[in-house]
C-alpha cells in the first residue's frame, strides 16, 4: 500500500491493510512464508492454543518474533467476559503488548460473539489500559456500546469464523461504515476468496483480518499474496470513487467527436 495512505490503529501507523491469523497452517515454514508474501504487519496469535509449554509452543513464538511483525493476541475460545479478561491479562504478560483482539463466543455452531459479554469485557479491559480490538457482529447499537466502552477500533464479521462465505450482510456493513466515518473498521471473519476482501475494502472498510482463507488454501503462500493484492485493489478502488451504476448501457466509445471530453 502506498506510503500516502497509512492505517492508524491506536498507537500504530501501518502501511498494510491486511491482518493475518496464525492458526491452521500446514507447517510453521508455510506460515512464515505466507506472512512474508502478504506483507502484513500485524498477526493475531492465540495464547490458549499456542501456549504449548512444549518445544512446539516455544518455537512457534520464536518464529513469530523473528518475523518482526506486530502481535495482536486474541482471546479465542473464551465463553465469558471473565475468561476473556483473564486471558487478555495473561496475553499482556506473555507477549508484552496491551493490544488484545477480544472474542467472547456466545454460540458454538456459529461462533457468534456474545455481544453482552463482549461489551462488558471491553469496558473492563479498556479501563485497565488495554487497546481493545473487539470481534463483533454488524449490529450498530453494539458498535455504539463498544465505542462507549473505550474501543477505538471495531471488527465486525462478514460471516461466521472459518465459513469463507464472504459478506453476509452488505447492508449492515455499509450502515456501520456510514455511521462511524472516523473509526477504523476492520472486517474480521468470514472471508473466503480475495474478491471478498476487495469487496469489503470497496465498502470503505479500513482493513481486513483473515486466517482460514489463507491457511486452508491449496497454496497458502500464493493465497496470502492474492489477498494482499485484492485488499490493495479494493482500497485504491474505494479511494478513487467508483462510478455510479446505471440501469442502461452508455457507450464507452463516443460515436461522434473525440475520444476525450473537450467540453470543459
Amino acid at each position, binding site marked *: 500500500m502506498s506510503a500516502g495512505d497509512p492505517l492508524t490503529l491506536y498507537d500504530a501507523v501501518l502501511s498494510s491493510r491486511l491482518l493475518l491469523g496464525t492458526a491452521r497452517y500446514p507447517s510453521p515454514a508455510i506460515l512464515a512464508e505466507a506472512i512474508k508474501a502478504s506483507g502484513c504487519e500485524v498477526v493475531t496469535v492465540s495464547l490458549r492454543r499456542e501456549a504449548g509449554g*512444549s518445544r512446539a509452543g516455544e518455537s512457534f513464538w520464536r518464529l513469530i518474533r523473528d518475523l518482526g511483525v506486530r502481535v495482536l493476541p486474541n482471546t479465542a475460545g473464551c465463553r465469558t467476559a471473565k475468561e476473556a479478561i483473564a486471558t487478555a491479562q495473561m496475553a499482556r504478560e506473555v507477549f508484552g503488548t496491551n493490544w488484545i483482539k477480544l472474542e467472547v463466543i456466545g454460540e458454538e455452531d456459529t461462533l457468534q460473539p456474545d455481544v453482552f459479554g463482549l461489551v462488558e469485557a471491553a469496558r473492563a479491559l479498556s479501563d485497565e489500559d488495554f487497546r481493545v480490538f473487539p470481534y463483533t457482529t454488524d449490529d450498530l447499537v453494539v458498535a455504539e456500546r463498544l465505542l462507549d466502552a473505550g474501543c477505538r477500533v471495531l471488527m465486525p464479521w462478514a460471516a461466521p469464523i472459518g465459513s469463507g462465505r464472504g459478506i453476509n450482510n452488505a447492508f449492515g456493513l455499509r450502515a456501520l461504515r456510514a455511521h462511524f466515518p472516523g473509526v477504523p473498521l476492520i472486517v474480521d471473519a468470514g472471508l473466503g476468496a480475495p474478491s471478498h476482501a476487495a469487496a469489503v475494502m470497496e465498502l470503505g472498510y479500513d482493513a481486513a483480518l483473515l486466517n482460514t482463507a489463507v491457511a486452508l488454501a491449496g497454496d497458502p503462500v500464493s493465497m496470502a499474496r492474492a489477498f494482499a493484492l485484492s485488499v490493495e485493489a479494493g482500497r485504491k478502488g474505494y479511494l478513487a470513487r467508483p462510478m455510479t451504476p446505471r440501469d442502461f448501457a452508455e457507450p464507452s466509445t463516443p460515436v461522434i467527436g473525440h475520444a476525450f471530453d473537450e467540453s470543459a
Partner: protein
Amino acid sequence: MRLDPFYLIVDDASWLPKLLPIGVRFVQLRIKDRDESDIRWQARLARDLCKACGAQLVVNDYWRIAIDEKCDFVHLGQSDLDAADIQALRAHGVRFGVSTHDDAELHRALSLAPDYIALGPIYPTLLKQMAFAPQGLEKIGIWKKRIGETPLVAIGGLTPERARAVLEAGADSACVVTDILRSEDPEARTREWIEATQDWRDRSLAR
C-alpha cells in the same frame, strides 16, 4: 497464610491459558521426563501466566528453578527433601510444601516447618502406583490436629464431591490431577471443582 481450597496440578504449562481464566488460583506444575531447559521455560511461562491471573504457582521438585525463576512455591516429595536446600528457599522467599504418607514422614516434614503439608492418597489414585494404602477421611482430622496452623492439602482420587468431603473433614485445600486432566471436558470439570469448593473460598475470604 490461606491456601485456595482447590489445588490443581498440571503436567504442562499449556493447560494454563485454558484453565486459569476459569478461576484456578493455586496450581502446581509437575513435569516429568523433560530436560531441564524445557522445564525452566515452562516454569517461567507458568509464573507469568499465574501472575497475570492472580494465581499462585507451585513448581514440583525443581527447587533451583523455583528460586531462579522467582516462583511462589516448590513442592517437595520425601525423596526430594535430601537434596533440597531449605535455607536457600527461605532466603529467596520461596515457600514449600511437603508430601507425607505416614507418621515418620510427618515428623520429618514438621521438623522443617513447611508452608503446607500434603496427605495422600485419600482415595485410591489412578495416577501412580502408591506404596501406601488409601488414608481415608478420618486421617485428615488426625493430621490436621497434629500439624496445627500449617495448611493441610489432601490429595489422591478426588472428585468435586470428594473434595467437599475432605474439606469438611478438615483439609484446607483439595488437590487434583486426573479428574480434570483426563476428563472429557477439562474446562467444564474445572468449573465444577471451583463451584464445589466455593463455600470454603468464601469462608477464607471472610476471615
